[in-house]
């Protein structure tokens, strides 16, 4: 490659360009250095002037102290506001949890009530009561009792966890269950248990329409995962006490009237034929 070779010339130009850029960069650095040196000198000069003059120094000190006091006051105010916002935030979070729980409870109560009143078939109503007791209360062994108004005897007509025949018959107003049913209020005994001892009820929910006893739900055992009763369970007991009774009452009334209507229709048909 000779010095007249175009490639050699191009390479030399390229190198020169790099050197020129390097030189320019060095000049820029020097200028920047000079500028910073001048700035530093000015700051040192100001400090020295302030140090030489006690009034200026004092003025500067007072100004700085005032500024620090203002900043501290601002900091305290902001800190207080932050604490307040945090407190409010916690309150909102707590309220949200409560509302969420309330919402869930209302959903459970709505579903239970909806299912109870969605039919006029007495067997379907009993099925709904059984489903509510299992799925919403967590009962494992329980019986649904209906009252024979003539004899005052309560007999299990639907159950779960044991044979229907093994549930004891209850005389209204007698014994712990009979008295609990007559009292018109849900009664809980001792700690909820598992196993389903039919001689030891856990809870008795009397079913009554306007203080007129219709029957009862007697729970003898809870599901393994159910360790106790929650406020929602007590709400459900109260709701069941009224709504299940009304649903049973309405369904019985409807089936009686349907039967009577059929009989009357039969007579009319007989007379008119």
């Amino acid at each position, binding site marked *: 490659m000779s010095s007249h070779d175009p490639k050699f010339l191009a390479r030399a130009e390229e190198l020169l360009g790099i050197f020129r850029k390097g030189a320019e960069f060095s000049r820029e650095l020097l200028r920047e250095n000079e500028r910073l040196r001048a700035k530093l000198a000015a700051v040192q000069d100001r400090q020295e002037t302030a140090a030489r003059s006690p009034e200026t120094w004092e003025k500067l000190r007072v100004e700085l102290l005032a500024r620090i006091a203002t900043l501290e006051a601002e900091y305290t105010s902001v800190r207080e506001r932050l604490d307040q916002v945090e407190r409010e935030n916690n309150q909102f979070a707590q309220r949200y949890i409560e509302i969420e729980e309330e919402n869930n409870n209302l959903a459970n109560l709505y579903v239970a009530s909806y299912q109870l009143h969605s039919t006029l078939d007495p067997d379907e109503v009993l099925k709904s009561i059984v*489903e509510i007791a299992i799925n919403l209360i967590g009962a494992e062994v329980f019986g649904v009792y209906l009252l024979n108004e003539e004899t005052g005897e309560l007999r299990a007509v639907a159950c779960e966890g044991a044979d229907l025949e093994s549930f004891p018959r209850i005389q209204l107003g007698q014994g712990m269950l009979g008295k609990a049913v007559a009292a018109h209020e849900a009664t809980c005994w001792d700690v909820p248990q598992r196993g389903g001892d039919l001689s030891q009820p856990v809870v008795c929910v009397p079913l009554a329409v306007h203080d007129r006893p219709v029957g009862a739900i007697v729970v003898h055992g809870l599901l393994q995962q159910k360790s106790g009763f929650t406020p929602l369970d007590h709400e459900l007991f109260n709701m069941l006490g009224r709504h299940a009774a009304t649903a049973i009452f309405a369904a019985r009334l409807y089936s009686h009237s349907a039967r009577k209507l059929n009989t009357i229709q039969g007579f009319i048909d007989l007379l008119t034929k």
Partner: protein
Amino acid sequence: MAKYRVLIVEDSPTMRQLLVFALRRLRDVEIVEAQDGMDGLRKISSDHYDIALIDINMPVMDGLKLIRLIRDEESLKQIPIVVVTTEGADEDRERALALGANEYLTKPIQANRVLTVVKDLLKDND
């Protein structure tokens, strides 16, 4: 068209309604109900679902059998399954999870818990 399709396989109308109530709070979701295992199998085989909530004790076909059939079917095996049941014993839980259930919830259910579990599984599957 809804973003997610959820299948509830549960024989109790009370429980189905409660689950629908809980899941309706998810946005953009279509909920389909099946009343027993066989109905559930029919529905899950004939349409696309993003998640299935299955009860264990059901007439016609129980939930465990349904889970086994879903996991054995190539086109369905990826669907997340949440068991919702009264059976709270550890062995029941282990059996269901061993068969391929993703989560196991016991009754009485907490709507929030159901919602959280379903949301997490849908997110994982996205």
